[in-house]
């Protein structure tokens, strides 16, 4: 073969692969995990603001009630809910309780739809 491996093109992968529920559920688990990690310093910042003097307390309340603040709170809540629910699903799979092909598919759908419903509820409350 005259062409070395490096010269050969790589066939398209993520850009063309069709998204199925379990793939979406797994990716959303990683993303929600990242959001939760990022929310820890933010939470400490909220806490510091709310436990300072009266002026900083009022300022932090304003921040939290602003549209941006509500959006952030909503997203963190959603990430928490999703990561918890899908994390339990993963634990079940790890333990061997959801290991049939239909169970893997249906459980992914249940988790994703639940997160959507939760997002709507949170959106309504905020």
């Amino acid at each position, binding site marked *: 073969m005259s062409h070395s491996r490096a010269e050969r093109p790589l*066939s398209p992968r993520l850009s063309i692969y069709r998204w199925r529920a379990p793939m979406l559920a797994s990716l959303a688990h990683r993303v929600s995990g990242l959001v939760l990690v990022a929310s820890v310093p933010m939470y400490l910042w909220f806490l510091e603001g709310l436990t300072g003097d009266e002026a900083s307390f009022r300022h932090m309340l304003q921040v939290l009630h602003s549209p941006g603040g509500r959006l952030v709170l909503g997203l963190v809540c959603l990430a928490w809910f999703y990561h918890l629910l899908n994390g339990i699903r993963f634990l079940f799979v790890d333990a061997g309780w959801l290991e049939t092909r239909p169970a893997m598919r249906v459980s992914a759908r249940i988790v994703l739809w639940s997160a959507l419903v939760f997002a709507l509820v949170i959106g309504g409350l905020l």
Partner: protein
Amino acid sequence: MAAETIRLSIFRYDPESGEQPRMQAFEVPLLRRGMKLLDALHHIKWEIDGTLSFRRSCGEGVCGSDGMNINGVNGLACITPVQGLRQPIHIRPLPGMHVLRDLVVDMDHFFAQYRSIEPWLQNDEPVPEHERLQTPEERARLDGQYECILCACCTTSCPSWWWNGDRFLGPAALLQANRWIVDSRDTSKGRRLDRLEDAYRLYRCHQIMNCMEACPKELNPTAAIDNIKREILNRKS
């Protein structure tokens, strides 16, 4: 039969031309009811464009040669009916692989990973006069493991393998590894688990489950990988 046509869009790459890969449109008549995608590829190769390259052998889902990406999901062309597929049917080589020509990809690394799990029965006990016997229950543990035909549909559907395929063994090799781990006649289970217990080789699996969705034999590599993880956990506790 009315002259119904099937529209296809096929990945083309010619290493001699020096050009980038491209998608090429084809139209093929619906030859008969129950026509398979491989029949359409044969029609193109034999009647329209003889330069179209793809692998196939048995034509009935046993040899695993014609794994390809069909409308975004990996599968075997020979057992995929064209009717029911959304048109134009997009056909690409198995994802994340080095393309040799058109739909033919370099399988060397895939088979090297398969070899690395030592896919043969290992037993250091004296050879018995007759067969090494199993109970029906022990034999049943091999169901869902031994049927793998190494078509690479699962491994090349796995994002973890796309990104870490140099070190992560991928679903096909791990399913095969599990096939020997659960075999009651194999006495190398401990050594097999030792070799798999690695942050990359085994634990890069992130339960994406594309392998389970892609497997044309309806096996479940994700479950096999989880079983290996449990076997490793069991011997620790």
